[in-house]
């Protein structure tokens, strides 16, 4: 598969996942704000910006409320960390890979993008939930269509790889705010809801809402698809398959042959193993360090993947020699 296409698919996977995760986070937070009049609205909103790694613009810094959050993190099409912006970026990426994704998946992205404005207007009347739910559903539809219409080839692996890395990263971000700035952070229940984990958690762990076991669930619960360990395992599996299944037979042409194990896989594998062998009882104390390491590993892996698979350049501008190049005198 073309390196350029592979990279585009990788980011397509990341952006759709990001739109989905961000919508989930916003939805849980918005619900919490409305549900509990005692919440410090400004502090909670600031925490949200931290979680998503988005700097609050200066002109908004004096006045951060639910509306600021929705307009900057929900509707701002120019910011790829917002819901609309991530979707916009996903669509732009998909346009560049229309020949490898199925027509149906593209149509899903396209229709959604065109509907965002109307959905936003509707949100103005009935509140943000409808808008956020729409995005979550459309993201699910996208992955559902991809799952049922895409061949399990390299393209699929890059898409899934992007999705998994983004998910691991987002969950780690969610937790780190709670851990690092608990005063402003939403309570654990909201956090679990933001990760889509509340129902599953209660079913498995009951209502014993002990912070440590909540964090442990989001990080370590292998059977829960939105947990960090699960996402990392999936990313690792994708990388394993990518390394093992070259699309072209080796030796055809003058292809580069990789002799060492790809190191993106090593970065992720090491992190996953580290998590799996973590002493669950002392997780609470280690959590800040673990989360930081996790986010760094996601970044390192993403860079390493680019190094290994996305070797192509921007369009080249060709130069001629000086004006008197080979001039006859």
């Amino acid at each position, binding site marked *: 598969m073309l*390196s350029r296409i592979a990279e585009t698919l990788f980011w397509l996977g990341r952006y759709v996942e990001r739109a989905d995760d961000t919508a989930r986070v916003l939805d849980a937070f918005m619900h919490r704000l409305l549900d509990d009049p005692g919440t410090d609205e400004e502090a909670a909103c600031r925490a949200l910006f931290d979680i998503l790694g988005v700097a609050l613009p200066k002109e908004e810094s004096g006045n951060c409320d639910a509306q600021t959050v929705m307009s900057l993190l929900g509707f701002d099409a120019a910011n790829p960390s917002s819901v609309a912006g991530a979707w916009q970026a996903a669509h732009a990426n998909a346009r560049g890979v229309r020949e490898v994704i199925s027509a149906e998946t593209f149509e899903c992205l396209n229709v959604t993008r065109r509907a965002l404005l109307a959905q936003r207007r509707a949100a103005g009347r009935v509140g943000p939930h409808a808008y956020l739910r729409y995005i979550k559903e459309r993201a699910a539809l996208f992955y559902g269509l991809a799952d049922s219409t895409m061949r399990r080839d390299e393209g699929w692996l890059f898409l899934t790889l992007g999705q998994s890395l983004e998910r691991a990263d987002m969950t780690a971000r969610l937790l780190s705010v709670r851990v690092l700035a608990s005063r402003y952070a939403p309570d654990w229940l909201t956090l679990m809801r933001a990760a889509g984990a509340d129902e599953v958690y209660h079913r498995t762990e009951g209502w014993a809402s002990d912070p440590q076991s909540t964090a442990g669930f989001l990080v370590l619960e292998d059977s829960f698809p939105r947990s960090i360990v699960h996402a990392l395992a999936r990313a690792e599996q994708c990388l394993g398959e990518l390394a093992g299944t070259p699309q072209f037979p080796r030796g055809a*042409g003058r292809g580069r042959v990789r002799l060492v194990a790809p190191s993106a896989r090593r970065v992720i594998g090491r992190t996953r193993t580290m998590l799996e062998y973590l002493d669950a009882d002392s997780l609470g104390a280690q959590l800040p360090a673990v989360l930081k390491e996790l986010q760094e590993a996601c970044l390192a892996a993403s860079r390493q993947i680019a190094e290994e698979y996305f070797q192509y350049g921007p369009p080249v501008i060709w130069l001629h020699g000086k004006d008197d190049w080979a001039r006859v005198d």
Partner: protein
Amino acid sequence: MADVFDAYEPAAAWDEMFEAPGAPRREYEAVFATLEHLDPAELRFRADQVASSFTDRGVTFALGDEERPFPLDLVPRVIAAAEWDVIGRGVRQRVKALEAFLADVYGRGAVFADRVVPRSVVLTGGGFHRAAHGIVPQNGVRVHVAGIDLVRDVDGRFRVLEDNGRVPSGVSYVMENRLIMTRTFPGLFADQRVRPVDDYPGRLIAALRAAAPAGVTDPVVVVLTPGVANSAYFEHALLARLMGVELVEGRDLICSGNGVRMRTTSGEQPVHVVYRRIDDEFLDPLHFRPDSVIGCPGILNAARAGRVAIANAVGCGAADDKLIYTYVPDLIRYYLAEEPLLDNVETYRLDDPDRLAHVLDSLAELVLKPVDGAGGKGIVIGPQADERTLRRLRAQVAAAPRGWIAQRPVALSTSPTFVADRFAPRHIDLRPFAVNDGDDVWVLPGGLTRVALPEGALVVNSSQGGGSKDTWVLASDPSAADGVVEPANGTFALAPAAVREGVADRQAGPPAEAPSQQQQQQQ
């Protein structure tokens, strides 16, 4: 109920649907019967459905910064089998002549020696590339894909308006139009045997594979696009997807030692056939525009060395020049020893001083076309031009008579088109697509019918307010329907009993429990 065709007033041209007011031609009877019972609101609903299908699917072309759908009209353009037979053979004949001409132009030049075409006409044409001299395609094909633009005159005869042998586009609309029509207006297809258009990608990939360099048994074919910003990007992506090949940009390719390769996740992989949707001038910065950032330097010499095939070949513009157009009937006679099956539109070259003087005197009655203009650019339609335009044109033509051809205006045929909640006649043309695999020239049944949407307009380009119509070629008899309507004879034509025998029983699922019982349990 008011009949939607009641107010239909045919223009002074051949009408595709009506022989006389209220009397549809035979091939349109079924379409007419379906449409006449629909009221305007219903038609509007369908039209909106069609439009949203296009935008949903992202079937758009870029005009400036805007993504626009190419409007598809509700009324198909129907071509009877016998009529198509002539068109198909005529297009095939024309493409064969153009191929022979190109081989000659870039080869020994017998056509010049025999004084059929003056050499200077080719040498001064913008599409002739000296850098392509000596590049011999492995299977002799240069025009792998051609689009021949046809119009129908007031007597109902098809005439060739223009040849497109460089990078003809529009075939994606043919396929999308059919798909969307069958989805949103299935009723129209009832009782019709319409020849399918989805063979195209299969034919194209076969032709491209056939063009592969000698000795390559399993060639790697790619589609080369200028990128997402190109107005026809959708088509490039669609063709790559339907053919199952990579869609590459110039930066994905590297040419070294006359071999072309692409940068993939498993290293550099060889490429054997490049179906390029980039103009010649941008293809190879070593030979053409050095400022091109979308091309692949070295690819032309790779083709010269026979290591890669470029489709369409570089320099095909030498044959689809508007001046060469005037010679095509002669070329058909010269190379094929046949009479042209499709006539040109009556056209004058301005190389003769008397003819030039005559043309300059009657500009208001003629259509003047710049020889190297594409996409309807620079065309002046005399009868519709104002005095100032004509004055400027006179000066331009007098200054450079070889840069222009003059044509008698053709009253393009009209077809009922849904405009503002009623049917009104609008002018249309037809671009059949031909694919040459070296053994045969295959013509896609139908092609792209373009509609000039503004009333009275004669220019049907997408960039100038054009739309399109689904183009139907009716099958002459059931066996010629290519299996759309009825299964092809052979393996699939099983008797119903045989089907039953070949399929296992299916579990329907456990029987539902009686509701009364549930209610009792809940009480």
